[in-house]
């Protein structure tokens, strides 16, 4: 079997303790919560931290708390917990859908929301065994110099594969971070960067602690649609999150976010523009889907060819939109 490289495991006694350890060990340390992403990647030698800081003892970071201002979810809440939470299912159905289709029941029992948001970006040339990567000469994301997908690219093009990320952006969620200099809040839309090697604005010594979903005005609807080849295990080849707010039959606010087409979730303002001010008639939905089709630029680094994934952008955008349109 593939074995983990040697490392020291330090369970955190408290959040402050965890932050302190990250400050102390710097780049030599990584945090782990469910371990469903990190340990698999460590076995492939994609990460070789000297120290792994265990967040799992921090049970105080596992919760779903509803208030008038919205819902706060602790970063260590398991995906199963969120998928089964009745408040999330009724008030934030797109998040419910997204976490329900992540991987398998077993991995959802272990994996956490914070871990899914901070999922390492993925690529056919990167998520491979060490020997395979060595035979190819490695890639810039780990051990090498160039991008094997786009050799002229100055940055890594590994793909954001988090199902929850586009939904959180669509809902306008805020992420709370704790670091050595205190706490700060970042809108989900600003958390992600289009760089496969540095895909978040989070500093390495910061820990994601909480996700805050805003209270939604009446008439808000949202949906998430995922393209994958099997009904379990698979990461998205494509995902579309949609949030629409309708007042008196007219769309007053819209957000369409794509994932698995770039190193960050891609928001499509043109799609929103095609929807706002309309009564969400089929033509408006088609135009928005066309805008999603135009905005998504998949590369040849996941399953499925580029033309297919590009075509499916329109189909999945149209389906997510239809699920949100009144009367559906």
């Amino acid at each position, binding site marked *: *079997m593939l074995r983990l490289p040697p490392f020291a495991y330090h369970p955190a006694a408290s959040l402050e303790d965890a932050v302190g350890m990250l400050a102390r060990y710097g780049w030599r340390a990584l945090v782990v919560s469910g371990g469903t992403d990190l340990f698999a990647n460590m076995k492939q030698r994609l990460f070789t931290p000297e120290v792994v800081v265990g967040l799992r003892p921090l049970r105080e970071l596992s919760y779903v708390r509803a208030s008038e201002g919205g819902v706060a979810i602790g970063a260590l809440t398991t995906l199963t917990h969120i998928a089964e939470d009745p408040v999330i299912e009724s008030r934030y159905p797109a998040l419910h859908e997204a976490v329900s289709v992540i991987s398998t029941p077993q991995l959802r029992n272990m994996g956490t929301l914070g871990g899914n948001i901070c999922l390492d970006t993925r690529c056919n040339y990167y998520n491979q065994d060490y020997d395979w990567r060595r035979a190819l000469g490695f890639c810039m994301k780990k051990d090498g110099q160039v991008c094997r997908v786009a050799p002229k690219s100055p940055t890594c093009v590994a793909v954001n594969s988090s199902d929850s990320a586009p939904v959180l952006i669509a809902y306008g969620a805020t992420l709370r971070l704790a670091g050595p200099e205190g706490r700060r809040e970042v809108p989900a839309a600003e958390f992600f960067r289009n760089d496969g090697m540095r895909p978040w604005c989070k500093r390495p010594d910061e820990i994601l602690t909480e996700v805050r979903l805003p209270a939604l005005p009446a008439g808000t609807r949202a949906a998430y649609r995922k*393209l994958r080849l099997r009904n379990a295990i698979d990461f998205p080849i494509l995902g579309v999150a949609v949030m629409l707010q309708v007042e008196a039959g007219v769309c007053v606010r819209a957000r369409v976010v794509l994932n698995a087409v770039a190193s960050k979730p891609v928001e499509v303002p043109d799609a929103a523009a095609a929807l706002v001010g309309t009564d969400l008639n089929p033509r408006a939905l088609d135009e928005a889907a066309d805008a999603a089709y135009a905005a998504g630029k998949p590369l040849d680094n996941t399953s499925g060819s580029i033309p297919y994934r590009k075509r499916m952008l329109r189909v999945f955008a149209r389906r997510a939109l239809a699920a949100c349109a009144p009367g559906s």
Partner: protein
Amino acid sequence: MPEAIPSGGRSVVGTRHPRSDAVAKVRGEAAYVADLTFPGALEAAVLRSPHPFARIKRIDVSRAASLPGVAAIAYAGNTPAIPLDFAIKDQYLFARTYARYAGEPVAAVAAHTKRQAEAALAAIDVDYEVLTPVLSIDEALAPGAPLVHPQWRTYERSAGRVLRGNVCGYNRIRRGNVERALKRAWAVVESRFTFSAGIPGYLEPRAAVARREPDGGLTVWCGSQSPYSNREELAAFFNLPLDKVRFVNQFVGGAFGGKILLAAEWYAAALALQCDRPVRLVFSRHEDGLHVFARHGGRALIRSGVAQDGGLTAMQASFVFDGGAYSGYGNGAALIATMLVSAPYRIPNLDLEATLVYTNKQIAGPVRAPGGPQATFAKEVHIDEVAARVGCDPVTFRLRNMWDEEDESPAGQRLRGVSAKRVLQAAADAIGWGTPCRPNRGRGIACSWWFSSCGRSEARVEVRADGSVHVTSGNPEVGTGAATGSLPIIVAEHLGTSPGSVFLHLADTADAAYDSGVGGSASTFSAGWAVLAAARDVREQLLSVAEHALEARRDDIVIGEGRLFVRGSPEHGISLGEAAALAGGVVCATGATPQIDDPSLEHPARLEHHEFAAWLAPSFTASAAEVQVDPETGRVTVERIVTAQDVGTAIDPAGIEGQIEGGAVQALGFALSEELQFGPHGIMNTGLGDYLMPTIADAPDIQPIIIESPSHEGPLGAKGVGEPPVTTPGAAIGNAVYHATGNPPHDVPLTPERVWRGLAQSRADTTSAAEFPHETAKTR
């Protein structure tokens, strides 16, 4: 004739029992090779070529040998320079002058820790001259193609085996005059297919522990399908006396044909022979993916002539299979494909050929029903295309052309017990054939035939004075349930006890109960015969004891519920244990498979280079599937699969249903998603995250239908069961997609993208060709 069940009727055979290994497996108590611990064992690791094709100019192990903890290094320089024992002697234990696929073993190291062994691998200096690899059938067959085996002319090979450059296998069956018949046909339909290579998909990676014994012998702990023949091969290779080599099989985590050939055992043994400590080698999933004996990728061209009345008049078929870097057992798929492609249909003119080619890829092997899913997919989708051409319903068309009793096989075998129409009708009825389907839904049907195999098997059955019943068989239980399901049932039937009370002792060569192994659907057939013979003998001995003890006539003694008693007075009897005690403490007997001759062929002249044309106790299987196709994405959801299989006599119906269900899911993966992807440095998807086997969430409703048409050759009338149910469901899915979309699928697996391209193509054909300008180019 099928042997009658004793005492008139069946009491255990045909009833449902949990298999005897179920509890240990479910509770995690079953010990697989990787679970075994040996004090002081060394850990081994294998150095593999990173290049699909390279000349090895030099291997220097001296730097590695001086590293801490390194106990032994095995490579071409210190292992026998004799080729492995295959029909074409083209392969060595370690790459010698050439490495011919990315992943081919070049050296192995044993060290005190796995980490030390891996460090030593990195210190072995191999000087490769990288060559241009041959990565497809087309490249292999192109004029002037680079030769995968430049020295092929020097290879020894068995009589009749074709070897010519990159072609390492060829066979042909001809009957009548195909050219003339095609010219005269009312219509000729031509179909071309491609198939991707796949993996057997067992969950337990290969592993072995080898230990040199003080007497100069060697013990190997393994999880093999054929420990006895593996042992013979290994002993001969290393020139060890056979009686000093012992193979001990452990619980096996699935095999599906992938564990017939030696793998980890070779390297653990090569290293252990240099050491005085046990050597343990456990492949990682990635490494197992590199060392895989793959399901053949390939292509097929089928051309059939049909008369206006719907009668098939001629078929011309040509298969080419990708055999990978070495011939191994790869030719089986080619031999079977020509036997399948025209069956079970009455076609007077045939010209059927199959070719095996070398490429610089993993070796293709005998994966469950070699060639079966591929050839069945091709022929059955093609048959639906022919039916469509004559405007005939697929079931009606098949029935119109199907074999009946006493019809002859393509090679001229007179067939008896032909249940083709029965299984077809059963599958069609169960799926609701002929009832309307909703839009984007389709039903498909497929029918085929298969063989039974009878290997050599020996068994010992004993009843001890404590009342326990023991069965020793050389047949390894690799997960099929043949040994743990059928053998106890056969014994329990004859000794009047329950299958759950039978102790099994399996597949330890020290037990001297030879078995030729799991493969070719042979286990219940051959091991069943051996156990049956031994159980009958023990039964007769018990009756003799009871005759004296009970002072009753033999005919009046009943065996049941663990006792022997006088008919009509159950209180007047003795237990099996008491009978054994009276006989001196044990009643035992050995049994072996009888000599069963291959069926005769009436027209051997129809064959060219074909050594597998006479099929023992053939069986028939039909599957029907119902699918839903998403027309926008091309995604196929299989809603239902029905498989009706003629099993001869159903000895263990619960086990048979397990085989049918497992076969359906394995066929689902073959048909829709499983595909080895080869990049410039070999397989891209060695892991189960990327190699898309179906999950339980993808598995449809599966309905097994057992049809019994007892064979004349099998124990209690049984036929081979394990392979047929993986051959037909994929083809049924293919035809269901055909009828849901209007497009016959030709490229397997039917990924959403391929189905979507097919739909886009037909929309473009019927509406505007400009709608899909760039996508259509790649579609056939």
